[in-house]
C-alpha cells in the first residue's frame, strides 16, 4: 500500500518559493494537506498543536539560520521526517543535515512535482522504518536483559541447594569425613563459589547495560579500603608466594565514593594481578592525588606479571574479553570483571585505564573524585550570593545496645539517614554523607542554616522521627546535639572584619565554613570513645 502523505508542514519564508512548492505538492499528490509558516517560532508552535506527517524546511528563516534550524525542528519533533529545501549554494549544509538524521534534501529551482512526491513518500516511509527498527532494537535489548536477569535468578536456586549440602557435609553435620573426602568437597565448594561469582557478574553486567547499576557515594578513606582489600586478597597472594603490598599516600583527603563498590573494583584488579603474576612476583596497590587533576585521587594496582601486548591493551575492558594465553590452568570468570569495574568507576565520575610493558608487568589505574564539602555546602548555606546569617552543626549519634545485628544494623543506620533527610529543609540544610567510621556506633552530621536558639525544633523533630523507627528503641541509643559553626552577628561583637566588609569572596567563606565543619567532624570521630567530650557538647546545647 502506498504510504499516505497526509499533512505536510512547509516552513518557508519566501512567499514565492512557498507557493511554488505548495503547487507542486498539490499537483503530485491528491491526498495532501499543506500548511505553510514563514518562521521557526511559528513552526515550533504548529508542531506543538499538531504532528504533521512530514516537515519541508528551508534552513534560512528570519528567526533561525543553517544547522540550528533543523536541530531545533528535530529536537521538537524527533519522530517526524524532515526534508530540506536548499538553495544551490548551500547544498553542502544540506548533505551534512542528511548525515545528522534529516531524511532528504531538494534543491529549490530544480523541483518537479514528480520528484517532490517521490521525496515526500520515501521520506515518510524511511522514517517509519527506522523508527520501528529503533523500537525493535530497544525491545530486543530489554528482552535480553530481562532474560539474563531471570536466568541468573533461576540458576541461583539449585546452586543454593548444592551450596547448602556441600557445606553440611564439610562441616561434619552428616558424620565425620576422611581427609580426602574433605579435599574433594572443598574442591566442589570452590566451584560452587566460582559459579556464584559468575552469576553475580552476569547480573551486574546486565544491570550496567540497562543503566541500572547504582552507587551510593559517601565520604571514605581510600587508604583504609585498600588495606581491607589487601587483607581480603592476602591468602590468595600467599598461596602463590606473591608479595602483595599496599602503599597508599597517607595524606590523601577523603574521597566521595561507594565503599562497597570501590572494594569490589580493587578486589577485581588485585585478583587479576595475582592471576597473571608468576610465583615469587609482586603486586603493589597505591593511591595518590591524580597528577593532572588534583580534585581526583588515583588508585592503581601494579603487578610484575608477563604484561599485556600493546595491541590487546585497548580490548581488556571489553565485555567477554578473556586473556588468550591464561597462565594458570584455572577456569576464568565470564570475562566481565574489568567491564563491570570500569562501569562502576565511570558511575563515580572517574575513569579507568591500563598500561603495560610486555614481560615486566601491568598497571591498572582508576580515579575517584575527592570529597569536597564546600561544593556540597555552597548552594545550601548561601542565599542570593551571600552567606546565610547563622550556621549550626547537628550531630546525630546512634549506638547499638547489643553486639551488632549484622545486616540489620547497617539497614537501621541507612533508614536513620533517610529519615534525617526528611527532617530538614533541603534548600538550607544538608545531611552530610556518612563518614564511614569503623566503630560500632554511627554518627551523622547535619549542617543547618539556623541558630542555636532555633535548632531545638530540628533536634526534636529528628528525635521524634528516628525514635519512631520500629525496634530502634530496643536495640540502640540515640543522642542528638548541636553546636555553633558560624554566626557573624555575635562574632561582630568581637571582630569587626567579619560581616559586610569581609574582603573574601562567598566561595572563600564557604570553604572556610567547610574547613571548620570538617575539623569538628574529624575531631569528634577521633574522640569517639571519650564520653566527657560528648557530654560537654550536650551541655552546650
Amino acid at each position, binding site marked *: 500500500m502506498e504510504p499516505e502523505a497526509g499533512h505536510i508542514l512547509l516552513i518557508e519564508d519566501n512567499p514565492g518559493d512557498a507557493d511554488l512548492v505548495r503547487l507542486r505538492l498539490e499537483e503530485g499528490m491528491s491526498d495532501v494537506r499543506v500548511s505553510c509558516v514563514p518562521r521557526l517560532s511559528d513552526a515550533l508552535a504548529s508542531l506543538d498543536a499538531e504532528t504533521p506527517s512530514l516537515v519541508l524546511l528551508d534552513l534560512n528563516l528570519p528567526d533561525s539560520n543553517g544547522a540550528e534550524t533543523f536541530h531545533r525542528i528535530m529536537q521538537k519533533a524527533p519522530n517526524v521526517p524532515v526534508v530540506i529545501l536548499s538553495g544551490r549554494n548551500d547544498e553542502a549544509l544540506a548533505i551534512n543535515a542528511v548525515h545528522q538524521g534529516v531524511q532528504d534534501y531538494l534543491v529549490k529551482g530544480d523541483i518537479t512535482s514528480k520528484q517532490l512526491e517521490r521525496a515526500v513518500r520515501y521520506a515518510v516511509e524511511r522514517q517509519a522504518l527506522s523508527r520501528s527498527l529503533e523500537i525493535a532494537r530497544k525491545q530486543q535489548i530489554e528482552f535480553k536483559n530481562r532474560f539474563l536477569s531471570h536466568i541468573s*535468578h*533461576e540458576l*541461583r*536456586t539449585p*546452586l*543454593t*541447594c548444592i*551450596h*547448602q*549440602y556441600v*557445606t*553440611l557435609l564439610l*562441616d561434619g*553435620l*552428616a558424620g565425620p569425613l576422611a581427609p580426602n573426602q574433605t579435599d574433594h568437597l572443598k574442591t566442589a565448594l570452590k566451584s*560452587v563459589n566460582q559459579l*556464584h561469582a559468575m552469576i553475580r557478574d552476569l*547480573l551486574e553486567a546486565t*544491570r550496567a547495560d540497562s543503566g*541500572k547499576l*547504582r552507587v551510593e557515594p559517601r565520604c571514605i578513606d581510600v587508604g583504609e579500603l585498600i588495606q581491607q582489600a589487601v587483607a581480603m586478597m592476602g591468602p590468595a597472594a600467599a598461596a602463590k608466594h606473591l608479595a602483595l603490598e599496599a602503599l597508599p599516600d597517607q595524606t590523601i583527603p577523603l574521597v566521595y565514593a561507594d565503599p562497597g563498590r570501590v572494594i569490589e573494583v580493587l578486589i577485581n584488579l588485585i585478583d587479576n594481578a595475582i592471576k597473571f603474576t608468576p610465583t615469587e612476583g609482586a603486586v603493589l596497590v597505591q593511591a595518590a592525588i591524580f597528577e593532572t587533576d588534583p580534585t581526583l585521587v588515583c588508585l592503581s594496582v601494579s603487578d610484575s606479571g608477563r604484561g599485556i601486548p600493546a595491541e590487546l591493551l585497548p580490548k581488556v575492558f571489553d565485555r567477554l574479553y578473556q586473556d588468550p594465553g591464561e597462565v594458570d590452568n584455572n577456569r576464568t570468570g565470564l570475562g566481565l570483571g574489568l567491564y563491570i569495574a570500569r562501569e562502576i568507576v565511570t558511575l563515580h565520575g572517574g575513569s579507568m585505564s591500563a598500561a603495560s610493558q610486555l614481560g615486566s608487568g601491568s598497571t591498572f589505574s582508576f580515579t575517584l573524585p575527592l570529597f569536597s564539602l564546600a561544593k556540597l555546602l555552597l548552594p545550601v548555606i548561601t542565599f542570593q550570593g551571600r552567606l546565610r546569617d547563622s550556621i549550626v552543626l547537628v550531630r546525630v549519634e546512634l549506638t547499638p545496645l*547489643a*553486639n*551488632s*545485628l*549484622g*545486616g*540489620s544494623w547497617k*539497614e537501621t543506620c541507612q*533508614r536513620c539517614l533517610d529519615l534525617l533527610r526528611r527532617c530538614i529543609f533541603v534548600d538550607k540544610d544538608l545531611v552530610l554523607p556518612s563518614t564511614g567510621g569503623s566503630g560500632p556506633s554511627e554518627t551523622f552530621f547535619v549542617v543547618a542554616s539556623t541558630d542555636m536558639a532555633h535548632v531545638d525544633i530540628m533536634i526534636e523533630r529528628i528525635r521524634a522521627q528516628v525514635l519512631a523507627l*520500629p*525496634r530502634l528503641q*530496643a*536495640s540502640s541509643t540515640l543522642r542528638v546535639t548541636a553546636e555553633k559553626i558560624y554566626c557573624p552577628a555575635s562574632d561582630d561583637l568581637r571582630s569587626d572584619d567579619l560581616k559586610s566588609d569581609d574582603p573574601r569572596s562567598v566561595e572563600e567563606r564557604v570553604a572556610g565554613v567547610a574547613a571548620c565543619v570538617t575539623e569538628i567532624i574529624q575531631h569528634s570521630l577521633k574522640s569517639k570513645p571519650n564520653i566527657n567530650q560528648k557530654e560537654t557538647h550536650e551541655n552546650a546545647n
Partner: protein
Amino acid sequence: MRTENKTEGQPLTRPKIMVVDDDPDLRHALSLRLRANNFDTVNAGDGYSAIAMAKKERPHLIILDLGLPAGGGFTVLKNLRKYPTLADIPVIVLTARDPEGNEKYTLESGAIAFFQKPADNDELLGVIRASLQAGWGLGRALQSGPA
C-alpha cells in the same frame, strides 16, 4: 538425628525456627543445619501454610523465601502483621532475588534482615542468634500473655 545434642544441658525448650521455602531439598538442608545448631525447626512450603503453621507452632523466628506459591513472601510478611500473636516474630528473608529493589522493601515490610541465596551460613546463624537474644524477652512475654 544426633540426639546427644539434646542431652548436653541445653535449655528445656530450644528456640523454634520456621523455615518457609518452596524447595523441599533446601528446607531439609537448612533444617538439618539449624537442628545441629540447637534449634528446633518446623517447615512450610507455601505462603498459605506458612501462616497456618505459624499460628499453630508459634515459632520464635521465621526464615522466609520471597518467591512462594500461594502468596509470596511479601504477602506472608503482611499477613503476619495482622495477627497480634504473630506480629512480633522476627523474620529473616532468604531469597534468590536481588537485594536491589527487594532489600529495602523487605525491611520496610517488617523483616529484620535480608539475605541473598546462597547465604554465608555463619552470617545467617549470627543474625538468627542476635535477633533471638534481642527479642527473646518479648517473645516470651507474648507467649505467656493472653493469646
